[in-house]
């Protein structure tokens, strides 16, 4: 009579020092697992229609006079996609720039500083754009 085995006996060639809990969580050394990969894909998907919208907006309204652009940006069907684009865009670009920094900056101090600046930049640009669009929409 043999006792049922719950997990395979580790063999010398497939030995692992990872605990079963760590394997189930799947978060790895970064404690974030593949969440950045997934967030990059989800925002990328959102960015496809929003990019087409932005490209159209720029080609249509670049160089136009103030009354024209203001009237356009006060329309909900332009203001709302613009807000969505800014939010999804800065989220996506923050992750992308983080990957670039982590690839090329190896000094620990410089890396941490640049990663923080990256976050500040994304939030500052995002809030500035949102502020402007909301001011146009809510302002008289």
């Amino acid at each position, binding site marked *: 009579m043999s006792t049922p085995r719950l997990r395979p006996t580790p063999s010398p060639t497939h030995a692992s020092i990872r605990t079963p809990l760590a394997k189930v969580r799947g978060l790895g050394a970064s404690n974030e697992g593949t969440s950045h990969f997934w967030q990059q*894909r989800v925002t*990328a*998907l959102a*960015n*496809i229609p929003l*990019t*087409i919208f*932005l*490209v*159209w907006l*720029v*080609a*249509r309204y*670049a*160089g136009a*006079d*103030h*009354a024209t*652009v*203001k009237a356009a*940006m006060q329309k909900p069907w332009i203001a709302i996609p*613009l807000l969505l684009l*800014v939010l999804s*865009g*800065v989220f996506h*670009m923050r992750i*992308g*720039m983080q990957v*670039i920094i982590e690839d090329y900056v190896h000094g620990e101090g410089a890396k941490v500083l640049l990663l923080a600046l990256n976050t500040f*930049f994304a939030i500052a*640009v995002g809030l*500035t*754009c949102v*502020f*402007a*669009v909301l*001011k*146009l929409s809510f*302002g008289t």
Partner: protein
Amino acid sequence: MADAISKTITRPRPLSPHIGIYRQQINMVMSIVHRLTGAALYFGTLLLAWWLIAVAQGAQALDLVNLVMGHPLGKLVLVGYTWALLHHMFGGLRHFIWDTGRGFDLSSVNRLGWLSVIMSVLITLALWLGALHLQGVL
């Protein structure tokens, strides 16, 4: 014997080919361009923020934006900005195809690379020619 060993040690070790000496291939160039356009779009958001704030600020602020971006160099930046957006989008679509496990064979990889360059350039041209046409320039 010792001579042979020292010769072996001092001989320059073979290095794996790096960007500088590797024959340029469409896929590696597209990979680099995807990252470059991503980084450019990152700072390009400053242009978008400047434009939006100027519109919210008033006619005078927007006049300055229009003056700077109306310069031939400004126009070049704008065309480049829309091209970078489109090229990065097509690069992303390529990655979506790869994410499903498809398109990894050499001919698909090459075809997708060329397709994203050609599509991004063609659509950028069509976009701005269309915009000029609507403005009555063309």
